[in-house]
């Protein structure tokens, strides 16, 4: 079974040799498939958002104190980095729509660079928290708040923090792998306004990663 996307033989700028679909239908089908996948992603994160909403409602004061452990400046910086990365992902689609493979490569490399900056910042943030004893399921060295009730909800906040940002970071890594693959195809001159499905669906996935963070940043760093 020869699959269009992974075929090694192709004509530069031309869609894969798909005999059972015309070009626009194949493009629309791929895009709709990605939207359906993104819907399941929203539900995946939705479960964690629901858990966060519930425990935030149950322990507002404790969550407030726990979120003060996070540095909102770092969170805001990473938010801007992801927004800029999304902008360049959108531009990479635009470049493909204008038959410019060189610009597709350039814009995707900028997107990947932003993704890398995000992950490096997140790494230092996590290790910083961990060095203060704030692991998932622990409450750190907070003698001032040592009531059992407080420790319990403090643990809950950092459990949710690590789960949500961890799952999000996993998505950043997967998104970077997809965009790197698309950039490599662009480097070989693969795309044109008649065929750029990998850039389009890769960018859609990347925008979702950005969307999730748009909600995570105020929830974890600001509202808490």
């Amino acid at each position, binding site marked *: 079974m020869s699959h269009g996307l992974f075929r090694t033989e192709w004509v530069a700028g031309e869609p894969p040799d798909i005999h059972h679909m015309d*070009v*626009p*239908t194949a*493009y*629309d089908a791929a*895009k*709709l498939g990605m*939207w*359906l996948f*993104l*819907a*399941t992603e*929203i*539900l995946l994160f*939705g*479960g964690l*958002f*629901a858990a966060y*909403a*519930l425990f*935030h*409602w*149950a322990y507002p004061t404790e969550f407030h104190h726990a979120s003060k452990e996070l540095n*909102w400046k770092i969170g*805001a910086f990473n*938010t*801007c980095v992801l*927004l*800029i990365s*999304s*902008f360049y*992902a*959108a*531009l990479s*689609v*635009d470049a493909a*729509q*204008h038959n410019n493979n060189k610009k597709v490569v350039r814009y995707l490399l900028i997107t990947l660079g932003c993704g890398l900056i995000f992950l490096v910042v997140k790494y230092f943030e996590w290790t910083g928290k961990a060095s203060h004893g704030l692991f998932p399921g622990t409450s750190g060295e907070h003698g001032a708040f040592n009531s059992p009730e407080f420790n319990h909800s403090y643990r809950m906040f950092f459990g949710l923090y690590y789960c949500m940002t961890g799952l999000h970071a996993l998505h950043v890594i997967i998104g970077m792998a997809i965009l790197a693959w698309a950039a490599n195809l662009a480097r070989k001159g693969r795309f044109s*306004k*008649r*065929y*750029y499905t990998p850039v*389009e669906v890769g*960018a*859609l996935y990347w*925008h979702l990663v*950005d*969307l999730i963070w*748009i*909600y995570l*940043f*105020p*929830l974890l760093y*600001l*509202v808490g």
Partner: protein
Amino acid sequence: MSAHHHDSHSGHGEGFHGELGHVVPYKTYLAILIWLLILTVVTVAAAQVDFGAMNAVVAMIIASIKALLVATIFMHLKFENPVTWLYALFPIVLLAILLAGLFIDNPFRTDPQHATEAAQHAANRLAVILRIG
């Protein structure tokens, strides 16, 4: 798939239908990025003001405006067909049902004393309503 056979009208505002998807002008993308960055500053500024119980609501409203900008322009949802809109909206509806269910159910499921109080409160309300009726 009739959307692909629209006449291409180039230039201002909304861009044009390319050979496959919709082509959005560079300036529109840039304007959206600037709005997203401004709204990030607004979120941070709003967090310095205490709206009490509305803190989370204000933050979520701003986040949703940002999400709408990303989805409609960056992800081209604005130019997509109704089926794509359906795919984008149904998880949000399901999530709303989940949250509504949780917040209706939860007051009766915390610690036993809390649950007893909540049940007592509901019973009192019901008694008042019935007596008036």
